[in-house]
């Protein structure tokens, strides 16, 4: 089960996730974020992963899919907080080379 909360803050689409980002979670994430991007026209995404307890390649794929969509339009994805086991998966997939991880939402928003 994955809970996805989206809202706008300083013109940025904030996405807060809670639960497991597997094949089911990936589908919920994709639907919620793509709908919010279309509805708001947001350029950047702040992705708060603090509540994510599990991720596999399905979950990584959907994060990478949003990354491609956003960067193609000149936007950025700011990732906030990864649990150690999640960070290890990101690292193994090479995602830490293209994404910067922030400790909290304030730090990420300050960066933009």
């Amino acid at each position, binding site marked *: *089960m994955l809970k996805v909360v989206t809202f706008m803050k300083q013109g940025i689409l904030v996405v807060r996730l809670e639960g497991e980002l597997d*094949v089911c979670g990936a589908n919920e994430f994709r639907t919620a974020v793509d709908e919010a991007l279309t509805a708001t026209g947001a350029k950047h995404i702040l992705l708060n992963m603090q509540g994510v307890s*599990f991720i*596999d390649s399905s979950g*990584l794929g959907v994060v990478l899919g949003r990354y491609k969509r956003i960067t193609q339009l000149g936007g950025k994805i700011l990732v906030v907080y990864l649990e150690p086991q999640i960070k290890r998966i990101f690292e193994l997939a090479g995602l830490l080379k293209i994404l910067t991880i922030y400790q909290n939402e304030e730090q990420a928003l300050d960066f933009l």
Partner: protein
Amino acid sequence: MEIQVKNQIKLAILSINENVAFARASTAAFSAQVDLTLTEIDEIKVAVSEAVSNAVIHGYGSDPHKQNYVELVMNLYQDKLEFIITDYGRGIANVEEARQPSFSSDPERMGLGFVFMDSFMDELEVLSKLGQGTTVRMVKLLVPRTEH
């Protein structure tokens, strides 16, 4: 001489996305009977999640109108845990190619499933036949830790 199984669980799981989490949780529960670190249990969960997801998504093509089952067998031996995931779906045309990083039949998937299974388990064996299905066998060795 046959190697003795100390414990065994066999599950038949309806091939729907929602059941991948159940399969994963059951492997964590099975693994909890031996002395593993949380990191090792996380590794098993990711590896099994990948194998079961592959069976549901690619093996059977996520068809909710068909009563397809993914079989999960968990074995505990003296020195290892073994997980065998079987589907009777379409099979993989070229197993060697499928095991390469960045191979995926879907652009939004990263083709990392087999990479994670390989990295997180001590043994990985994939048997597949087109039109007949796929069996993935994975082993996590139990390394005795020194007592303190």
